[in-house]
């Protein structure tokens, strides 16, 4: 029977349901917040906005990422609640001991949240403890327990509601994004391999590969993040998750091997590598086929051939015509190519296992060897700032009693932890997003909410408000501003079952929240400016300081690395040195280059790339030093190597004072380096010319070449880095800005 409603045509129907991704995400978020708060109010729970805050903070791009954040939030809340109750139980009437204990716990959580793993869990564990203790002031065991339980159950409610909405309404899986990123990563690595192969034959320029190297690093991180998400929201990925972890590990190793190969190319460029390594063409042909087969398998197609074993040999006759340094360069290159052969075979097996094209299971991912325990100074700095903020706010509460009272130190501590979690969140972003959310909340709280009656109308308001915020701030780069605006809005509209309206309460809440934010922002500038260019300069100085210390300690009379303190410092500096280029790269991307005329982002990226190379060379030298050298070599080369150490260490230490200063022209340094190389060559010839004493075993030869290659590589890398630094106009970097 026709009810008088015209049937909608298929074209119109498609138009009606064609919503943008941004609109869909906004609907999902608004719906989840409305349902979560509705359930909390229906259950008669106080502070229903905690359930809403959970939805706001776990709402990220895909179901998998949201699920893992939801789980981390729930676990972190539980751990924080237990810690808060335990601390309150230990010191219910001793405020100073309570604060000391809270400081130790929050400091530990802050150190862990600034790391690479489970940072969101540690953030929740830390800030939930602050919330439980502050909201239970004055401390009373029943209210503290009720607050802890309420927070835990509302957090779990928010996580469950958002999970259900995300799974059943327009679910976004990470699987396609993850597999696409994996394909693109391997494609970029294949391109880099081919580019380096061409460079080896004298074709192309090394700087042409820079965009692909940057893309490779970016994709490697993206694959890891997407794998964490895809494991959770895709059964297909979950079943072969160990193999995908192995693929990521091998891709990382491939990146390092390709990087080492590229760094050794300038040393063998003048040589006829095809004659020195007769099987080189066959190896390259085999590697080409393997890379093509792996790309084919990643696209879902079966391989057409299996890898063939191939061995690289050296033509001894051709090698006799080379100098010792040239021989060392060939030996090092041969090692890199053999690593490449091994890795490509392992990758082939791994990808074949993932796609089920083979019955043979690939080896499991090896957990990376844990670095020795060493404190990261930047993470420790973040801990100091959070604790300073917490104590300042606590002392203000005790002696001044600002608005917010016991909530003031809580909020200041939370803001300080947020600034530690997402540096450098600029002050303007923090103030504008919180202030914007507060202003929006104020308008609705004063002019709209008093006219609402019943949950249906309130639900429409909540849905509309959150849809608007999510839609307007829906871009991924606006995620932080969106979260801040939503949380500020939720706190200030103060929804509760027993709803009351008080302008003075709203105004006082705005005051203490913004004051606590101001305090956290102010302490972020202590003791050094968090501006990206200032952070860059500090990290750059630290890089040379640590490098100089490590190099001087490797000398034969290296006293500084001996003893417990020396060894601990060596471990500490080595670990930090390996992290510093990554931190410098991240810093370089955040700099506002409009305030640094005559400096381009490309110049800074080039400089950071040269520091990566320098770090690898130092690492190679440290590893080469760990291998035993023949007694003859140690004795005869001691003076030459010691003078080399002194020159390099002196240059690095001068750079540590001010890495931006011009010391001397690279031409002069290269000239001195060439003279030292010639002296070293003569010393080595003298060793081998001694009758009966010039015989070294194969292992001793290999170690000798490795050591020589490391020294030469380090010198070249240091000069290259200095040259790139000379090209940057450093004067504006030192200028104070606010």
């Amino acid at each position: 029977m026709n009810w008088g409603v015209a049937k909608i045509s298929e074209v119109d129907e498609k138009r009606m349901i064609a919503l943008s991704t941004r609109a869909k995400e906004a609907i999902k978020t608004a719906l989840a917040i409305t349902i979560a708060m509705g359930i909390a109010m229906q259950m008669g729970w106080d502070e229903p906005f905690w359930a809403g805050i959970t939805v706001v903070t776990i709402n990220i791009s895909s179901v998998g990422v949201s699920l893992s954040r939801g789980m981390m939030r729930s676990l972190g809340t539980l751990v924080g609640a237990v810690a808060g109750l335990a601390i309150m139980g230990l010191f219910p009437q001793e405020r100073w001991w309570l604060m000391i204990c809270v400081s130790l716990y929050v400091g530990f959580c802050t150190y862990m949240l600034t790391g690479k793993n489970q940072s969101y869990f540690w953030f929740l564990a830390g800030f939930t403890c602050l919330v439980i203790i502050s909201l239970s002031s004055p401390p009373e065991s029943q209210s503290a327990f009720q607050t802890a339980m309420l927070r835990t159950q509302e957090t779990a409610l928010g996580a469950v509601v958002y999970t259900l909405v995300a799974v059943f309404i327009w679910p976004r899986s990470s699987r396609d994004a993850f597999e696409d990123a994996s394909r693109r990563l391997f494609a970029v690595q294949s391109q880099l391999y081919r580019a380096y192969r061409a460079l080896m034959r004298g074709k192309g320029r090394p700087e042409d590969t820079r965009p692909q190297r940057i893309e490779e690093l970016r994709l490697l991180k993206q694959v890891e993040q997407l794998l964490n998400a895809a494991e959770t929201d895709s059964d297909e990925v979950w079943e072969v998750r160990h193999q995908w972890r192995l693929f990521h590990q091998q891709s990382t190793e491939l990146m390092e091997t390709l990087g080492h190969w590229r760094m050794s190319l300038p040393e063998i460029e003048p040589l006829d590598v095809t004659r020195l390594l007769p099987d080189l063409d066959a190896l390259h042909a085999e590697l080409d086929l393997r890379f093509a087969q792996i790309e084919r398998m990643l696209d879902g197609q079966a391989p057409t051939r299996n890898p063939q074993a191939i061995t690289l040999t050296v033509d001894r006759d051709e090698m006799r015509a080379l100098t010792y340094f040239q021989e060392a360069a060939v030996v090092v290159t041969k090692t890199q190519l053999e690593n490449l052969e091994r890795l490509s075979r392992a990758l082939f097996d791994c990808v074949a296992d993932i796609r089920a094209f083979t019955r043979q299971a690939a080896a499991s991912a090896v957990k990376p060897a844990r670095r020795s325990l060493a404190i990261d100074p930047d993470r420790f700095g973040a801990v100091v700032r959070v604790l300073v903020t917490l104590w300042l706010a606590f002392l203000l509460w005790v002696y001044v009693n600002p608005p917010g009272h016991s909530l003031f130190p809580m909020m200041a501590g939370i803001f300080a932890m947020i600034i530690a979690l997402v540096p450098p969140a600029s002050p303007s972003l923090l103030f504008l997003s919180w202030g914007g959310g507060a202003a929006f909340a104020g308008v609705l709280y004063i002019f709209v909410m008093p006219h609402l009656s019943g949950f249906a109308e309130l639900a429409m308001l909540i849905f509309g408000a959150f849809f608007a915020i999510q839609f307007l701030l829906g871009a991924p780069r606006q995620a932080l501003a969106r979260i801040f605006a939503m949380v500020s809005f939720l706190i200030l509209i103060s929804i509760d079952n027993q709803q009351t309206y008080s302008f003075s309460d709203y105004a006082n809440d705005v005051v203490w929240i913004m004051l606590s934010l101001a305090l956290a922002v102010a302490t972020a500038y202590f003791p050094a400016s968090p501006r990206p260019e200032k952070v860059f300069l500090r990290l750059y100085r630290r890089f040379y300081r640590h490098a100089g210390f490590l190099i001087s300690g490797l000398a034969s009379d290296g006293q500084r690395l001996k003893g417990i303190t020396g060894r601990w410092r060596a471990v500490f500096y080595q670990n930090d040195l390996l992290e510093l280029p990554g931190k410098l790269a991240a810093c370089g991307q955040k700099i506002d280059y409009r305030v640094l005329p005559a400096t381009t982002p490309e110049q800074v990226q080039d400089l950071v790339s040269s520091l990566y190379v320098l770090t690898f060379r130092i690492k190679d030298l440290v590893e080469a030093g760990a291998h035993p050298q023949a007694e003859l070599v140690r004795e005869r080369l001691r003076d030459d190597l010691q003078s080399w150490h002194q020159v390099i260490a002196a240059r690095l230490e001068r750079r540590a004072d001010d890495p931006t200063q011009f010391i001397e022209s690279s031409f002069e340094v290269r000239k001195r380096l060439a003279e030292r190389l010639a002296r070293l060559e003569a010393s080595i010839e003298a060793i081998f010319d001694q009758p009966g004493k010039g015989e070294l075993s194969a292992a001793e030869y290999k170690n000798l070449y490795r050591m020589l290659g490391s020294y030469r590589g380090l010198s070249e890398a240091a000069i290259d880095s200095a040259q790139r630094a000379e090209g940057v106009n450093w004067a504006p970097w030192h200028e104070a800005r606010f």
Partner: protein
Amino acid sequence: MNYVPSEFTIGGVYFPPLLIAGFLGVLAAGMTVMLLNRYRLSRFFYLPEGVRQVEATVQDNIS
């Protein structure tokens, strides 16, 4: 007579004085920062060399 304002009203609505002071303070700070950065006025600030050295040493040892 105490001339320090302790109450603040707009249209008969009482506001916390700290809210108005804070809002005006943030506004003033923002404008000051914008002017200082735009005209590079930090070049005219005097900082004794000894203080600069101490500052650099503290930052290097802490960071």
